[in-house]
């Protein structure tokens, strides 16, 4: 990049404090870096690193969140002069916001005003900064919508945010931020809330706009893979301080600081498992390697779980008397099996039915039809009483949100002891010993047994949830996005724990996840779901190295790789929006028909009306 230019922004020893109950809390301290014109700087860090605070300080929006810039300079080059944004008055700041600096945020669902039309929200900035008339502003808004490739821009202007999909809203947000051709675009986790295919489109769009307009981009993210795809330079932050800064290739190839090395090590890279037969633990710098890894998958002569033609539909109620007016086809004619001591991963984007599938197997959601055999026990034939007594004795679940999956008013000891007592695994003093054993197993100190959930971190809670699931010695654990809410280093630790437990106890996992790179490391077999159907299933190597279904291919092509030398995010990526799974009552979907590609590798024939081509 052009380093001889004067920087557009230079942040010097920034310090931000927040009002706390016991005096000020430091949000960011001693942070200095620069952004050159036309350059993309990625600020990366885990939660609590102060990365968002830094970007909000630049906009001076941090003050609206109770923060205060208490030190340092924020030099910004305006009309050839350097001004210090930290000292600028509110009127000048208003003139700069939206004009010189544009900003997009994380949540496309909440970042547009729900009661105003798209037109009104897109034009008010133009009218303030450019003094445009209503019709001029409308023309410009149309031009912007075309620039961000939104179909039917005229119609969009009259629509309200809730009428647009998440990806579409984020495009509108970007168009809004681009309205006055800012010289700096701040993107604060702009793709975190989006599905991977939409993320790929949005990343490609930001990259193209940057090249077309020559603006600089300050990109805030927690995702190293996104950094590798987007950044020219990288700033790594940890607990409010800058850890390391440098060109993206250097940071990934030769990280200087221990924290950066640890962060990078914990990130799985799609494709790095090529040619390996068995799952492998995650790398963790500075910690002992995992005790054991799961064995390779053998053929499945005597599967633990057999799911055949599973279908789950949820009624949509409406009209008079709250009758059922339509059905959500959450899971549609899905069949697979899981071998003993093995992991089957179900992957797909939000709404594809992977979670419903897991819940249906446990009958937390009641399936509409199909067969579920666990160790030859017909789960669907069980009465509610036997379901509790027998099925859940063998199958347990670990939920996504570590903050919601433990009862906040019950001691951890009692929560883990509940299944032991209820299923009479142990009685009397044996219960306490078993709980202590389980805490050892999930590598939590026994002192935590008498604590309440709020005294633990997210990763620790997820360990407790795993201990509770293990309490009954289950044959199968259904892990529904069990590590998705965790920071990357914690995620790696929990994944390694799960793999160790599998190697030692021979437990099987149904691992439900949207993260292809994580799945590649942990799964023996992989099933890809789309719109309630299983479109492809096979061993990990079959699905990742020889994908057959068009949807599997496009999904894999959309995953950002955590390697700056492999930039796969391209402008020509174009994905179909996922259609609605709501069908009228009389709709009879065609059965799923599969072609066998190789032993164990099945692909849904045609697209079964899925439209993923």
């Amino acid at each position: 990049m052009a380093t001889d230019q004067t920087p557009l922004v230079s942040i010097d020893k920034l310090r931000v404090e927040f009002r706390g109950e016991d005096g000020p809390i430091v949000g960011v301290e001693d942070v200095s870096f620069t952004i050159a014109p036309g350059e993309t700087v990625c600020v990366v860090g885990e939660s609590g690193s102060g990365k968002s605070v830094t970007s909000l300080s630049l906009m001076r929006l941090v003050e609206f969140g109770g923060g205060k810039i208490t030190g340092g300079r924020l030099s910004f080059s305006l009309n050839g002069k350097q001004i210090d944004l930290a000292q600028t008055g509110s009127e000048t700041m208003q003139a700069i916001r939206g004009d010189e600096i544009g900003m997009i945020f994380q949540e496309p669902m909440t970042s547009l005003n729900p009661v105003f039309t798209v037109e009104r929200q897109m034009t008010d900035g133009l009218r303030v900064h450019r003094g445009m008339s209503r019709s001029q502003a409308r023309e410009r808004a149309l031009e912007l919508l075309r620039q961000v490739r939104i179909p039917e821009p005229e119609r969009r202007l009259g629509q309200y945010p809730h009428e647009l999909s998440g990806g579409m809203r984020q495009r509108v947000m970007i168009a809004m931020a681009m309205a006055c051709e800012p010289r700096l675009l701040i993107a604060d986790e702009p793709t975190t809330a989006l599905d991977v295919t939409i993320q790929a489109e949005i990343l490609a769009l930001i990259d193209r706009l940057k090249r077309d307009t020559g603006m600089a981009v300050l990109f805030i993210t927690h995702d190293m893979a996104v950094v590798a795809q987007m950044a020219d330079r990288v700033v790594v932050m940890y607990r409010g301080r800058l850890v390391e800064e440098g060109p993206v290739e250097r940071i990934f190839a030769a990280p200087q600081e221990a924290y950066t090395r640890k962060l990078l090590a914990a990130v799985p890279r799609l494709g790095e498992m090529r040619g390996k037969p068995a799952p492998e633990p995650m790398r963790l710098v500075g910690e002992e390697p995992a005790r054991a890894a799961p064995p390779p998958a053998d053929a499945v002569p005597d599967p633990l779980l057999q799911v055949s033609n599973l279908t789950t539909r949820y009624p949509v109620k409406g009209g008079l008397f709250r009758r059922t007016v339509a059905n959500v086809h959450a899971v549609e004619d899905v069949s697979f099996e899981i071998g003993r001591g093995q992991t089957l991963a179900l992957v797909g984007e939000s709404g594809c039915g992977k979670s419903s599938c897991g819940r249906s197997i446990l009958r937390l959601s009641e399936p509409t039809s199909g067969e579920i055999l666990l160790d030859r026990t017909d789960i669907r034939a069980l009465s509610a009483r036997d379901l509790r007594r027998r099925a859940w004795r063998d199958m347990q679940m670990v939920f996504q949100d570590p903050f919601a999956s433990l009862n906040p008013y019950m001691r951890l000891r009692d929560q883990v002891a509940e299944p032991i007592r209820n299923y009479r695994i142990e009685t009397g003093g044996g219960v306490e010993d078993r709980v202590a054993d389980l805490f050892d197993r999930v590598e939590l100190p026994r002192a935590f047994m008498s604590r309440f959930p709020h005294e633990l971190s997210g990763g620790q809670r997820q360990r407790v949830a795993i201990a509770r699931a293990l309490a009954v010695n289950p044959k199968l654990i259904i892990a529904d996005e069990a590590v998705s809410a965790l920071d990357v280093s914690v995620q790696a630790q929990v994944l390694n724990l799960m793999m160790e437990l599998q190697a030692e106890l021979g437990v099987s996992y149904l691992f439900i996840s949207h993260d292809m790179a994580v799945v590649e490391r942990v799964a023996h077999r992989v099933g890809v779901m789309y719109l309630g159907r299983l479109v492809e299933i096979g061993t990990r190597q079959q699905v990742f190295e020889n994908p057959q279904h068009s949807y599997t291919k496009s999904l894999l092509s959309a995953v950002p790789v955590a390697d700056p030398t492999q930039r796969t995010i391209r402008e020509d990526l174009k994905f179909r929006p996922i259609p609605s799974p709501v069908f009228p009552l009389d709709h009879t979907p065609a059965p799923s028909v599969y072609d066998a590609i190789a032993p164990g590798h099945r692909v849904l024939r045609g697209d079964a009306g899925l439209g993923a081509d």
Partner: protein
Amino acid sequence: MSYLLNRLFSMVLTLFLISAITFAVTNILPGDVAMMIMGTQSNPEALAGLRESLGLNDPLLVQYGRWIGGMLTGDWGTSLVFKEPIAPLLLQKMTASGLLVLFSMTIALTCAIPLGVWAAVHANRWQDTAASSTAMLGVSLPDFFWGIMLILLFARGLGWLPSSGFVDPADDFGGAVRHALLPSLALGLGLMAHLTRMTRATMTGILNQEFIRVARAKGLNESTVVWRYGLANAVGPVMTVAGLQIGYLFGSIIVIESLFNYTGMGWLTYQALLNRDIPLIQASVFVIAAVVMLSNLIVDLLYAVVDPRIRLS
């Protein structure tokens, strides 16, 4: 359209339930209409005759059927105390009370919304503390206490306004307003305090939303951000709360109208309750519940007007 039909059907069902509850509650009364008409000292034979002719010996379900039939056909019976047909009486009193509800709601909303927004903008600073504390005090005082204070100050002390009575707006509009002002204020002050608290809470929530940050990031000035972007989102929730308060108002109105001798619906209901005028109790309790339910329905429909998320779904 199906939304509207749905709501209308639900409304009819609720009205039916309201009538059933009203009838059930009033029939627990010891003594009956015949006793009320003839007095306790009356001749038992005559009493039995009257009972028979009024149909009081029929099963309760039949009596209920007859009553609801009358309500539907406009024959609401005759008040035992006022010796008048009930329907026109209620209509007239409802108009008087409608004036109070209208006045107090207007007073409350015009003050509460700016005050609540102002408090939310200055959340957790002295402006907020001042506004919130005042509002807290406001919701803690009984309505009739407000009424007594107002009478002491404006009627007895300053002598600006009458402390008692009702004037029909059709006869003397100025007089009607002067007589309605103090009771409206007494109703409106507590309501205002409540709505201020609600507006503040709603606006505080809205001002912490992402789209407000986005509006600021666009370079809009703070007053546009708060009063256009913010308030536009608060209108629906505040309106809903205000609508729910109509029910509360119709409770308070009983106390306030008695205090001010303002002969509206509340006063009438109170007279009916004191004198155990069963047909009048039944009719007025039913009418008040129906009016409350209808006003909530109207607020729900208005919500759909201000919020495109409901309008377009």
